[in-house]
């Protein structure tokens, strides 16, 4: 039966090519536009580390002294060095690392080069599944001994050493030298969820070194630093400043619950120690909660998505109108079929099959339009342009959306068509 309906649908669509083309075009434009914006949305709000996003937690605290604390304020993203060192000492998570972004000037051979850096701990690499091309990351012992070691990105390795295994070579940082212990494989997190304050999209840092070493060498760090009283050195161990980011890995939900309790206890202890008299705040957000809290998807993109969906709605109304015109124009034919014994249900299904064929054709054309739209998006000078691409899921979603929306559009016209009274239709012919 389905094959017969399909044959009828194709014949009917062929009969009035202009109207058919119009319907296909309307659906295709709606699908193309909304899939373009939905894909952008999908990429931007995507999970940067799907295998671990539920096990990685950003730790945030509010330990402001009373005169800087205002109830209702958001929990600050960063921690003081004092709290970071206490948490690292306790080491209650499966893995944990404090970190900060920075910049420095390095020289290996020839011209000095300005590079973006990340000061962090040994756990950073296994925690974020960072691949190594040569050598390996530094150890926790290196953290403790403030070892003069560094891990460099494959890009920097290419730039400085022509891409050969550079483990054991040294990087000159001013008077100091850092021994390269590892070279990263290809690793770019987009969005760069572990530090959203220094550009949300872009390449990974070029040099990684132990935070303890960076503090020892007084390397300059960048990113937000918030001090509540005057200080000469915002990076000092007891400085009244929040500037360090802290991530913990907790492999099971039970461990996460225990860890959250530990954080509450920690804050309570700080209050008892007299650092502040308010209740304090401490929380651990997993990756998706963290991205959500930071509003990584630009407002522009969310706005476009809403408008594109509205646009798809308009295209659907359009298709409803055109399908209605098409079906009712065939009242005579439908009357004949009904008179020959076709049930209302059969007419309804026949009309829906026709709508579905239009939808699929619209989907194929819409996919082409969406691909074109994405090419245009990639040529826009936005931070995220380079990372926009369509994956298999969005490809399938395109067809599902096209088929579902055309069937939805077909419902009303098909319902009206099956109501055609055979006697009247035949007589008026």
């Amino acid at each position, binding site marked *: 039966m389905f094959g017969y309906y399909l044959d009828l649908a194709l014949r009917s669509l062929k009969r009035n090519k202009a*109207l058919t083309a*119009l319907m296909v*075009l*309307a659906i295709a*434009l*709606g699908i193309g*536009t909304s899939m373009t*914006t939905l894909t952008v949305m999908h990429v931007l709000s995507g999970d940067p580390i799907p295998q671990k996003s539920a096990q990685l937690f950003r730790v945030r605290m509010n330990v402001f002294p009373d*005169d*800087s604390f*205002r109830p209702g304020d958001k929990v600050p993203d960063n921690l003081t060095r004092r709290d970071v060192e206490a948490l690292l000492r306790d080491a209650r998570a499966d893995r944990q690392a404090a970190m900060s972004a920075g*910049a*420095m*000037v390095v020289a290996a051979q020839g011209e*000095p080069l*300005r590079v973006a850096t990340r000061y962090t701990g040994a756990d950073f690499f296994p925690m974020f599944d960072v691949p190594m091309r040569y050598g390996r990351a530094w150890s926790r012992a290196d953290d403790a001994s403030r070892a003069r070691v560094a891990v460099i990105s494959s890009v920097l390795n290419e730039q400085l050493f022509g891409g050969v295994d550079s483990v054991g070579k040294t990087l000159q*940082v*001013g*008077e*100091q030298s850092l021994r390269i212990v590892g070279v990263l494989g290809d690793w770019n997190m987009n969005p760069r969820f572990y530090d959203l304050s220094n550009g949300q999209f872009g390449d990974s840092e070029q040099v990684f070194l132990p935070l303890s070493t960076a503090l020892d*060498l*007084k390397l*300059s760090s960048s990113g937000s630093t918030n*001090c*509540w*009283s*005057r200080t000469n050195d915002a990076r000092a161990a007891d400085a009244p400043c929040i500037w360090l980011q802290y991530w913990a890995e907790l492999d099971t939900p039970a461990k996460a619950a225990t860890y959250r309790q530990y954080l509450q206890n920690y804050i309570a202890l700080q209050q008892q120690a007299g650092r502040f008299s308010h209740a304090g705040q401490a929380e651990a957000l997993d990756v998706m909660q963290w991205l959500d809290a930071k509003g990584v998807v*630009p*407002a*522009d*993109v*969310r*706005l*476009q998505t*809403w*408008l*594109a969906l*509205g*646009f798809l*709605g*308009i*295209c659907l*109304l*359009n298709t*409803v*109108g*055109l399908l*209605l*015109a*098409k079906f009712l*124009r065939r009242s005579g034919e439908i009357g004949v079929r009904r008179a020959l014994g076709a049930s209302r249900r059969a007419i309804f299904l026949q009309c829906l099959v026709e709508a579905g064929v239009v939808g699929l054709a619209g989907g194929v054309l819409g996919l082409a339009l969406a691909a074109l739209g994405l090419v*245009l*998006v990639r040529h*826009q*000078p*936005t*931070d995220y*342009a380079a990372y926009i691409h369509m994956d298999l899921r969005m490809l399938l979603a395109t067809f599902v959306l096209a088929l579902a929306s055309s069937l939805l559009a077909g419902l*009303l016209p098909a319902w009206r068509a099956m109501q055609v009274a055979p006697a009247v239709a035949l007589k008026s*012919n």
Partner: protein
Amino acid sequence: MRILHQIRPILAALRSHKTAVMLLVLEIALTMAVLGNLVFIVYDTINRSHVSTGIAESQIGWLQNIGVVGQDNPVTGAENLAVLRAVPGVADAAYVSPPLVYAQRNPLFIDPSRKQPVAQVYEFQGSQGLVDTFGLHVIQGREPTLDELPVAATVTSDAVFPVLVTQALAAHLFPDGHALGKLIYDGGGNPMRIVGIVDHLRGEITGRVDDDYAVVTQLLLGAQNVGGGFTIRVHEATQLPQVLQAAAIALQKANPGHVQNAALTMAEARESYFRNALAAGRMLVAIMLILLVVTALGVSGLASFWVQQRRRQIGMRRALGATRRDILHYFQMENLLIVSGGVLLGTLFAYALNLFLMHRFELAHLPAHYLVVGALALWALGQLAVLGPALRAANVPPVVATRSV
């Protein structure tokens, strides 16, 4: 008048196509809602990208420096400023970061207990010469003299800083107009006394009223060294790129231990600040154009269906003496009525969508004239779309009436 007489029969005819008419009205209403808001958003973005920050942007550039470990610099902060001022073409220099490049909003209080913030303001803290470097216009009070400026090296936490505020902030804090001499407080720093009012200084351009709420603090930089950003103003705007380059080289020469990090003209800063928004605007314009095309296709598709369906009636009317012009007008009038229905409903939809977007995206209220323009555009679009089918209808010969289909 003849056209007006036609309205009744048109309405009567439309009543027998209720579903199709409703669909068309709905489509036009939705188009109007989306279109009105889109035009508003895009126009607003374009307008915003031309709003001045209040500083002499065409003459201003910014230099950022970072140090190399282990190499101490013999040069002090004040000397760095002198080095920059000595570069030919530089009118003034100060240690500060300009608007759009680095702007941080902080809560502001008018009571020393700092319980209830009265505004979120952009704080510009920099060295002596900041006001001249930015090219700010002091319209009330005066700029603090060099003697009054707190000395950065020796300042205590209870010293009162003389500051400038923007006119908009002064009016917001002290609606009675007596802002001069009043004390204000930020989150954790020193108390500040308002000694002067500048016309405009916008930290960012988001479209909010409080973009123009700013507090300017100058500290006297002496022997100590500061890292970070220097802002320079040049005499000739056309020379800015070259002078900025020369200033970077001079700074580098004076500080062998520093490596230049970034040099940015305000034009570049503005371009990068608005890049995403303008890119989004272009996307929206594309959506808008496609939307118009789709709606026009829909209207004309349905109109041609109706014309074909009514060939016999048209023939009869022609046979009974109606002219081609009458038939043409009939379909044009019919379209005008349907589009008008859509426009009426669309006005409601547009406001509803605007309310939703205001709620979710801090969008401003949709001004009424956008709807007038939207309505005119849709009327024109409808007439354009129906012209083809209507002309075809006008060409139906009277003889059709006597033929069986």
